[in-house]
């Protein structure tokens, strides 16, 4: 239906990274590659068949955000096809499909499972009740792509991070359908687009702090009540270290991060790094530091998305190919992530074993060349989407030439 020329150009931006999300008590796990949503039941070790009464193919275009609710009862998937699908994470029936006006880039579920919030490419965050038909506007980041949405652990605030380096902390009101107008704070400090945010807390302290990853090669720690920046952790040195040809420090993007429950640790995935960083947060001193670097040997595995359940870290590396061929995804697991004895599991050792890999990866093993090509495509796609285009002075003047409304002086 689309012109072949436009399709060629869109191909670059349309490459979508594979996403992974694991149930909070590891009852099931979901992976998306392009528009394909694959779920595996870890309780009875079997692939899940999704039931959607509305149509056969579920999502028609790349899925950009997935997550389980904190309770584990709901699952939501959404993306470029402008549909927000809310699933029961028990029966895997699609409970509700909401139509968004624009492509959706981020999603979050309130802790009591009553509201789903989703954000679009133009900076509007929408909210819909569980049984609702259409979303209403909750708040807006003026003309900025929203990259991440999170509720604070106590449910008081909703956080939205955008491409213009900002994180906004807004009070989530009693009546969200009237809009969220009371801004608590802005967490300002990143010098590039913010990609991911997550809360870290320890079981002793009641207070939790926010961590954020960005295209500026840092992970930062924040106090959301005041918006103050507590600490900044540079991660570019790690990636540079292990790539022998890199002499200068280039900026690397933090792809994903997740806090490990019942610890003050967080796992971080970086764009060019074949492995995971473990960051430790000292919650009384308010500092953040790299505590461990875990390299994945044997294959070029660069995680595009990570998710944690109790102490098992699940990672996926993959992408849709942007054309009619199916994309690929490769799943790896690190167990006991918070302890000294953390280990990267071999395929046979992972929960669900070969059956899980067949379901989530599409096949049991993936070629190295496919993985390398795809990780490069993901990197290009993300920077063309989120990096501001910098034109030189001459190029800007050239682009202005086509304007026909300039007055000449004298």
């Amino acid at each position, binding site marked *: 239906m689309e012109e072949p020329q436009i399709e060629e150009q869109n191909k670059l931006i349309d490459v979508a990274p594979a996403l992974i999300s694991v149930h909070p008590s590891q009852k099931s796990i979901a992976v998306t590659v392009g528009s394909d949503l694959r779920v595996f039941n870890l309780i009875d070790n079997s692939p899940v068949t999704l039931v959607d009464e509305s149509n056969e193919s579920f999502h028609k275009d790349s899925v950009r955000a997935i997550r389980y609710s904190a309770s584990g009862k709901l699952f939501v998937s959404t993306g470029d096809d402008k549909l927000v699908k809310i699933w029961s994470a028990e029966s895997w029936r699609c409970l509700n499909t909401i139509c968004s006006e624009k492509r959706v880039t981020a999603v979050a579920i309130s802790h009591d499972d009553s509201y789903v919030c989703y954000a679009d490419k133009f900076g509007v965050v929408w909210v819909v009740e569980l049984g609702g038909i259409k979303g209403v506007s909750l708040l807006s980041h003026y003309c900025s792509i929203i990259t991440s949405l999170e509720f604070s652990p106590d449910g008081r605030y909703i956080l939205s991070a955008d491409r213009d380096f900002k994180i906004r902390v807004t009070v989530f009101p009693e009546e969200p359908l009237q809009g969220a*107008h009371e801004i608590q704070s802005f967490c*300002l400090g990143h010098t590039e687009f913010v990609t991911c945010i997550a809360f870290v807390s320890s079981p002793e302290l009641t207070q939790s702090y926010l961590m954020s990853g960005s295209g500026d090669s840092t992970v930062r720690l924040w106090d959301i009540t005041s918006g103050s920046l507590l600490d900044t952790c540079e991660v570019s040195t790690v990636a540079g270290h292990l790539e022998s040809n890199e002499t200068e420090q280039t900026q690397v993007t933090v792809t994903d991060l997740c806090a490990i429950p019942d610890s003050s640790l967080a796992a971080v995935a970086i764009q060019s790094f074949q492995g995971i960083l473990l960051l430790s947060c000292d919650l009384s001193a308010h500092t953040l530091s790299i505590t461990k670097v875990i390299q994945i040997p044997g294959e070029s595995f660069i995680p595009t998305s990570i998710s944690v359940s109790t102490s098992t870290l699940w990672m996926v590396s993959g992408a849709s190919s942007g054309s009619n061929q199916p994309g690929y995804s490769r799943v790896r697991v690190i167990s006991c992530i918070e302890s000294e004895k953390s280990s990267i599991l071999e395929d046979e050792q992972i929960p669900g074993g070969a059956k899980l890999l067949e379901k989530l990866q599409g096949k049991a093993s993936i070629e190295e060349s496919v993985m390398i090509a795809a990780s490069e495509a993901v990197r290009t796609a993300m920077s063309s989407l989120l990096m501001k285009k910098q034109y030189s002075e001459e190029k800007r003047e050239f682009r202005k030439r086509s304007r026909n409304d300039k007055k000449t002086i004298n």
Partner: protein
Amino acid sequence: MESETKPTFSKSTGLPRKRFYRARAHSNPLSDSHFPIPISPSHLDFSLHFPKFFGANNEEVSKKAEFADIGCGFGGLLISLATLFPDTLMIGMELRDKVTEYVKERILALRKSSSGGQYEKVSVVRTNSMKYIPNYFEKGQLSKMFFLFPDPHFKEKNHRRRVISVDLLDEYAYVLRAGGIIYTITDVEELGEWMRSCLEKHPMFESLTQDELDSDPVVELLCSATEEGQKVARNGGQTFRAVFRRIAYVS
């Protein structure tokens, strides 16, 4: 070398001449900026804006800007406010490059020519206030915000470019302190209704009473102090005001 022959300045008044700072009336607020934005309000270099008050030796910044004129145009309101409020720091924000240059030159020239130092507390910055207000001002920093004769963006599809909207009012409420005042005025009736309606809908703003409007000396400046306002008065046009107070959130 010595002669101050800046061709764009009037020889008699020492002030910049507008015809050399011609600009289009509109600027696209949606396009990405290529001017520097402070990463956060604490990164804003006050010594650049108010050199008499903040030395380069990292002195304690005790005073902060309290008034912001959003879309300050050629600076008419700021100049009048500086006389009325000689002890208050104020900043004008303007998207258009040439117009910002004009205001900068005007302020510098006035600072040189006046003895009372009343223009030392006025400054201007080129920025997109629809995207970057929180980068310049901390929570509750401002006591007054001005939106004089904003671009009406007549077409319905362009209404989202309007500087007053319920969503943007969230951010303006954030930088205004409780009790702070937002002043809006326009000569376009539909826009006047729009702005009033947005402010009425927003849970953190309430309208000033007629008595409060009458006793506020700033209110009459809205029509008379700016070039735009003077033009409307000359043509015998009507103006539509909406002046509201920032209040604590009411659910």
